[in-house]
C-alpha cells in the first residue's frame, strides 16, 4: 500500500523547473553561453567557470589559485586597486572570484542599469589584471591570516591529514589554500602564469540568468570574453588512486569532541552507475531517517551531524564523510559507520527506501531554481559534465530508471567498509591507530 502511494507521488512530482527555459547563445565570435532569461527583477547574474584550479599550483607555491581569486578585482587596466573597488562598490556591482581544486570561477551580479560598467569591469579583471605590489601583499597577508586562523582547528587538521595520507605525492594531498610559507612565495609573475594557463576559450563555461536578452548577451559575450586566448596549456596532472586505505589515524588535540573524517574510492561523474550511486547516497546520508543519521544521531544521540557525499574530482573519485562525537564515545560512532557501511553493501536498500529517495531527489529538484545564482551554478555544472541542454527534462527519468537490481549491485560496488580510512582529531578513548598520521603542515 505504501509503495503504491509513493509511486503515485512520483508521477506528480516529476514536473521539473516549470517556467525555466534554457537557451543556448553563441556569440558572433563563437563563445557559447547558456541563458535563462527572466525580466522580473532588474538583475543580471553571470557565472563563468574555467577548468583548472588549485590543483595546478606549482609545488612550493600552493595557494596560488586562491591568491589569483583574491587579487583579480584589486586593479585591472587603467584602474588601480582603489579605483577598481570604488567602481564596483559605487555601482553596487558584486564581482568575485573563487578557486577550487579543478576549476576557477567568476561570479557577477549587477543591476541592469549599470550592467555595461559591470561587464567592463569583469572583462578587465579577466584580461588585464594588474597584480600590483600593494594589493598583492595585502591579499597575501589576508590569506595567510585565514590559514593561521584555521590551521589548528580540529576540522582543518582532520581534513589536511586525511588528504595528505590519501595523496602523499599528488596536488590533491596538499592544503588547497596553501600554507603560510607557500603563499608567501607567490609573486605577481606566478599569478600571471596561472591566468595564462587557465583563462582561455577552450575551457570556459558561461551561464547567465536574469534581465538580459539573447541578442544583447551575444554581444556582451564577445566584449567580455573575446579577448581571451583561444587555447591554454593543458593540465599536466595525472589521475591518481588512493595511496591510503583501511587506516585509522589519530591526531591528539586538547578538545572535548573528536572530529572524524573518513572516506574511500568513489565513482566518476560519467560512470553509468552515477544515478544509482546518487540514490544510494540519499538513502545512506540524506538527512533525517537516512541510515547514518538514524543509527548514530537519532537512535543514540552520538552526534549533531554525520554526513557523507560523493566527490568526483577530475583525477580521482571519492566518497567522503564525517562525524563528531565526544571523546569518550567516538569509538562507538566509528564502529557504527563501519557497520552501517557493511550492512548497506551486503543487503542493499529496501523498496521503501528506494521509493522515498527517488521521490525526494526528483521532488526537491525545482527548489534549486528559486534564485539566480542557484540557476547559474546548475547551468554551469550541466555544461561542464556535458549532460546536454535537455538534462533538466531528462534528469527525473534517469533517477526513476534506476532499478532495485542496479542499486543492490552498485551498493556492493560502492560501499567497502574495510577500505574506509579514518582520521580522528581530538583526545579519543579506546581507539588504536593502525598507522601514524602524516604531518599535516606545509
Amino acid at each position, binding site marked *: 500500500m505504501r509503495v503504491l502511494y*509513493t509511486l503515485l*507521488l512520483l508521477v506528480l512530482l516529476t*514536473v521539473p*523547473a*516549470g*517556467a*525555466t527555459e534554457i537557451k543556448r547563445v553563441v556569440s558572433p565570435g563563437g563563445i557559447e553561453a547558456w541563458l535563462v532569461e*527572466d525580466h*522580473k*527583477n532588474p*538583475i543580471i547574474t553571470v557565472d563563468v567557470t574555467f577548468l583548472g584550479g588549485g590543483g595546478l599550483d606549482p609545488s612550493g607555491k600552493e595557494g596560488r589559485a586562491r591568491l589569483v581569486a583574491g587579487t583579480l578585482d584589486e586593479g585591472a587596466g587603467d584602474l588601480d*586597486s*582603489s579605483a577598481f*573597488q*570604488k567602481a564596483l*562598490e*559605487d555601482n*553596487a556591482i*558584486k564581482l568575485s572570484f573563487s578557486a577550487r581544486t579543478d576549476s576557477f570561477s567568476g561570479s557577477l*551580479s549587477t*543591476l541592469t542599469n549599470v550592467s555595461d560598467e559591470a561587464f567592463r569591469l569583469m572583462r578587465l579583471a579577466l584580461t588585464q589584471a594588474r597584480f600590483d605590489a600593494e594589493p598583492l601583499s*595585502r591579499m597575501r*597577508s*589576508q590569506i595567510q*591570516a*585565514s*590559514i*593561521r586562523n584555521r*590551521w*589548528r*582547528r*580540529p576540522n582543518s587538521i582532520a581534513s589536511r591529514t586525511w588528504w595528505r595520507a590519501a595523496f602523499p605525492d599528488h596536488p590533491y594531498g596538499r592544503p588547497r589554500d596553501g600554507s603560510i610559507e607557500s603563499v608567501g612565495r607567490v609573486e605577481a609573475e606566478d599569478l600571471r602564469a596561472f591566468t595564462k594557463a587557465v583563462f582561455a576559450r577552450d575551457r570556459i563555461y558561461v551561464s547567465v540568468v*536574469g534581465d538580459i536578452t539573447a541578442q544583447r548577451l551575444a554581444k556582451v559575450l564577445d566584449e567580455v570574453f573575446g579577448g581571451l586566448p583561444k587555447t591554454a596549456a593543458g593540465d599536466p596532472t595525472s589521475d591518481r588512486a588512493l595511496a591510503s586505505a583501511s587506516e585509522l589515524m589519530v591526531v591528539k588535540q*586538547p578538545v*572535548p*569532541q573528536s572530529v572524524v573524517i573518513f572516506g574511500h574510492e568513489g565513482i566518476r561523474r560519467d560512470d553509468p552507475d552515477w544515478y544509482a550511486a546518487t540514490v544510494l547516497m540519499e538513502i545512506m546520508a540524506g*538527512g533525517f*531517517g537516512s541510515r547514518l*543519521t*538514524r543509527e548514530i*544521531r537519532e*537512535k*543514540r*544521540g552520538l*552526534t*549533531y*551531524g554525520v554526513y557523507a557525499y560523493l566527490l568526483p574530482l577530475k583525477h580521482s573519485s571519492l566518497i567522503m564523510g564525517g562525524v*563528531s*562525537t565526544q571523546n569518550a564515545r567516538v569509538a562507538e560512532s566509528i564502529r557504527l559507520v563501519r557497520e552501517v557501511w557493511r550492512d548497506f553493501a551486503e543487503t542493499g536498500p529496501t523498496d521503501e527506501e528506494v521509493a*522515498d529517495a527517488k*521521490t*525526494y531527489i526528483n*521532488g*526537491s*529538484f*525545482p*527548489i534549486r*531554481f*528559486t*534564485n539566480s545564482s542557484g540557476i547559474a551554478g546548475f547551468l554551469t555544472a550541466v555544461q561542464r559534465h556535458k549532460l546536454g541542454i535537455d538534462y533538466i527534462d531528462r534528469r527525473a527519468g534517469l533517477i526513476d530508471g534506476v532499478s532495485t537490481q542496479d542499486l543492490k549491485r552498485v551498493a556492493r560496488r560502492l560501499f567497502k567498509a574495510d577500505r574506509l580510512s579514518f582520521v580522528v582529531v581530538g583526545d579519543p578513548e579506546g581507539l588504536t591507530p593502525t598507522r601514524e598520521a602524516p604531518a599535516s603542515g606545509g
Partner: protein
Amino acid sequence: MKLGSAFLIALFTAAIGLPALPEAKVFEPETFTLANGMQVVLVTDTRAPVVNHMVWYRVGSADEPTGKSGIAHFLEHLMFKGTKTLKPGEFSKIVARNGGQENAFTSQDYTGYYQTVARDRLEVVMRIEADRMANLQIIEREVIAERDVVLEERRSRVDNRASARLAEQVDAITYFAYPYRVPIIGWPDEVSRLTRDDALDFYRTWYAPNNAVLVVAGDISADALRPLAEKYYGAIPARAVPKRPRPAEPPHLTARRISLADPQVGQPSLGRRYLAPGYVHGETRHAYPLQVLSEILGGGTTSRLYRKLVVEDRIAISAGAWYGADGIGPQLFGFYLTPSQERSMAEGEAALDAEIVKILADGVTADEVARAKKRMLAEAVFVRDSVTAPARILGQAIVNGRTIADVEAWPDRVAEVTVAEVNDAARAVLILEHSVTSQLLRKGG
C-alpha cells in the same frame, strides 16, 4: 551536508561580521489575520513552482525560565519527535517524501520552522506543521537521546572552538540583566538537566496560534492560501499567552574588557561592541542612521576602516563594523579588527579608537552618506532575487514587533537619512562606558 545545517540556528547573530539581512520595499506582500489571531503573510513569486512555508513563534531563548537555559532550542529539536498521530521522525519523512526540504531555527527573540516544497505539496506540510503546533507528544527515550544530540551540537559549535567560547563569554558580560546574556544553546550544565516536562511546559506556554505568524512565499495566490490557512491553522483555538519576561538593562557605567588565550588560536583578533538602540528598542530614531554609519565605517573595501587601517596604514589585515537593529531588546553596534603580523594588538586597538574619535569629532561627509545609501538601496533590489529571503525578513520583522509597512518603507527611511542624523547616532552610541572590548589571543607562541 544537509544535516550540518539542519536546525541551523541564528546562534551567534551578534558574532563578528554577520550583517543583518537587507530589506527591500517591493516585496509587496499581502496579509490577513485568522479568527484565532494568527497573522498570515504572503509574498507571491512565480519564478519556480515552489513555495516556502514558515511558522514563526514569538518566543526565543531570552524568554526562558531561570535555570532552564537552552529550553527554547531543545524544544525546537523535540518538535520533530512526534505528535498524537505522528511517530518520532515521521514529520521529516513526510516532508522528504513530498520532495521538500525543511529546517528550523531558534534565536534570542523567536523560533521558526519552515519547509520548501513544490506548490502542490503546500497542504501536506501545512497539515503537519499545524498538527505539531497543537498536538506535540514526546516520549522519554527520544528526549534523552536528543538531549545528547544537543550537547554534541554544543561541543561542535562552542566547546571545540576557542572563538565561539570567547563569543559566549562576551555576550555574558555585555548584558547585566537582559537575557541576551545567556547563550541560545544553553549553559552545558543546565542543558544536561533539561527534562521532557521542561520542554512541554515551555511548549504549552508559548506555542499558540495567536503567538505565531505564518509566512508563505512563492508560487501561490492569496485566494488559494486563505482557505488552507483557515482549515489547518484556523482550527486551533487561541490561548492566553503571558507577557514576555524581559527585564530592563540597568545603566552601564564602566567599560569592560575580556580576553581568551588558547593554543588553538593562530590569528589574534579584536572585537569591540557598544549597546545600541534598534527598530523597537530604545531611541529608535537612530536605527536607520546607525545602518548608514555601519556601512560608511565598515561596509566593504571602500569603507573608512578598511581604507585607513588595512590599505593605507597596514596596521590591520582586516577591519570593519556591524550593526543589528532587529531584536526586541538592547542591540549592538560593533567593530572587528585583525592586527597585521608586524603590529601589536594594542596598536590595532589604538588605531581603531583613533577612527572612532575622528568620527565623533568630525562626523561623516555628505559624499560618504550618499555612497552608502546608494549601495544599501541596491541591496533592496538584490534581495528580491530569492524566495526565502523575503519570507525571512518579513517574518523576523513581524514577530519582533514591526509591521509590513515598516519593512516596505525601508528604502524610503534609508533614503531620508541625513549627515546630521548619522552624526547624532554615532555620538549617542559610541560611548566607551557602554562597551565591551574582547581579545582572542594565541597561547604558547
